[in-house]
């Protein structure tokens, strides 16, 4: 997966709208709801120091981020996945903050599509 510094991939989003048709808005709402839960899970695993679970949770979120077209958020998740694999959560808290901030931004940007 190539690194992308965009908050929203507008091209991907347009394609998604074409695919989802009348369910596009529902999908985005589902994504936002889902992501809140998943970010919560990531935080929990970090607080408990569960390295593998942290990596897996980041991996899960990464998936839907890439489908929806939030490249930067997906990239942060990829970094979290790597941390989990390498067993080093020292940068965890900093990444957690980045993820939460980025998500807030993405949510804001997606409002116009809902």
């Amino acid at each position, binding site marked *: 997966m190539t690194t992308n510094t965009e908050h929203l991939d507008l091209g991907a989003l347009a394609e998604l709208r074409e695919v*989802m*048709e009348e*369910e596009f808005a529902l999908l985005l709402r589902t*994504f936002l709801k889902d992501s809140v839960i998943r970010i919560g899970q990531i935080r929990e695993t970090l607080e408990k120091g569960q390295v593998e679970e942290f990596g897996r949770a980041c*991996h899960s979120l990464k*998936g839907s981020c890439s*489908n929806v077209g939030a490249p930067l958020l997906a990239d942060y998740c990829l970094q979290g996945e790597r941390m989990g694999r390498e067993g080093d959560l020292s940068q965890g808290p900093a990444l957690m903050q980045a993820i939460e901030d980025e998500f807030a931004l993405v949510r804001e940007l997606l409002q116009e599509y809902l």
Partner: protein
Amino acid sequence: MEQEPLKILIAEDNDTDRMILQRIIFRLGHTVVSARDGLEATELYEREKPQIVLLDVLMPRMDGLVAARRLKEMAGEDLVPIIFLTSLSDAESLAKCLDAGGDDFLSKPYNPVVLKAKIQAFNRMRLMHRTLLHQRDQISLHHEHMLREQQVAKTVFDNIAHLGCLQARNIRYFLSPMAVFNGDVLLAALKPSGGMHVLLGDFTGHGLPAAIGAMPLAEIFYGMTGKGFSMTDVLREINQKLKKNLPPGFFCCAAMLDLNFSRRELEVWMGGMPASFLWRGGELSVLPSNHLPLGVLEAKAFKTNTYKFELSEGDRIFLWSDGIVEARSPDGELFGEERLRQVFEETNHPSLLFDEVHQRVIRFMGESERSDDLSMVEVTMMPEDALGIEADQISGSAIKGPESWEFTYKIEGKTLGEFNPVPLILHNILEMPPVRAYSGQIYTVLTELYSNALEHGVLGLSSAQKQTPGGFLEYYQERERRLKEITCGWIQFRIRHRPEAGGGVLLIRVEDSGPGFDYHAFARSAPVEDSYSGRGIPLLCGICRRLEYFGCGNMVEAEFAWIKA
């Protein structure tokens, strides 16, 4: 190309991703069935029986890898393609997915174009697999069908071929039970005169085509041998039948024997079979084929010249099909005639030869080779009463047949050289079913009187020549020569039958155009034992109630009385 609508099962725990995937597949025109984890996926599979499965790898309750194994088990023989949905990118994880039974991957973000292409490709594969299974089942069915047909053919053949005397003590053989489907046929039958015909045949081809030719061959062999026809007559008839009825390129290699136990004579016809080996008192004679196989030549071109031998008790001849000579060792070498000769040179006692040959060939072939197309027979000269076989079962008949009759039959000129009337005359006599129990004796009488009339009367051969060992062969060569050149002369049979208390009496009169002989002189001298070179008069006197010569000795009448068994 338009895709037929499929039912596709997806298992994805992420709501967002699942929604997107459902949509994409729905837009492609297919039906979607969704599960949230591996366990639900297996339950849904059972219920819905989808054609293709899309599985996320990391799922709660049962992950994709375990689910994939289960689904493949449940699919059984059918091919249900499983495509893993994953954003795993390392080679090790991807390999694990394929090991679990996955057929492909689809990575996130989901690309509708790629998914469409993969669905199409796997559907093609699925359909091809189904065709394969269907064809496999068809082949299996056809194979079973063919085996059943072969069973029927074998039963028919065994019923035709079981009449016969293969269990006689002078015959040893090995032949696989299914040999007829390799084209190998072994037949043996007693002649009414007490002699024996043996035939080893090898038809071209395998399976039913090879077996089919064996049926008319067996019918002719048993039918004609039982009526007393000569070996060459039987061969000629078989050749003609096969030539007429088999397609071009189908024929039967054959080796045939005619054994005369009372005279200890052997006649051999070899057409296309590997050379037979004759063991006589320690000497080995190799008899190569000097004729084409049966079913190749037109009747006119068919040749019947045979090897002729006088044998002693214990002498034996070996016939085999090419399975023996062409047996291959594990490294492809052929057994060959040389090795066969070696066996004969190295084995001291003749009764060991049969087993020795068999053992050596089996050892030569080694473990891997099948030995079910080895066919071999050993026929030994021994006294007739040592053969250990019952006289042929006479088929019971409810009718009496004609009781008071007579007929005259005369052949003359060239016909004398071309036609033996004895089987025909015997056939007419045997129209009285109760007399069939005596066919052997009647045949002997007819043959002796006919041979005398032909050889001594018409052809003018001297019986004294047959006494010497070399003279025996010369006699028969001279006989052949004179028969070919004959243009005049005749022999006439007059057969009469009258019923008598409890049976009947058969009067057989034979007259020939020859000069006769001094039968008065014979009556005065003692009958010569153990010599067959006379006119067989002691033998005839043993069978007939009365034997009388008339005129100059070219007319003889034999009276044969029979009683109902």
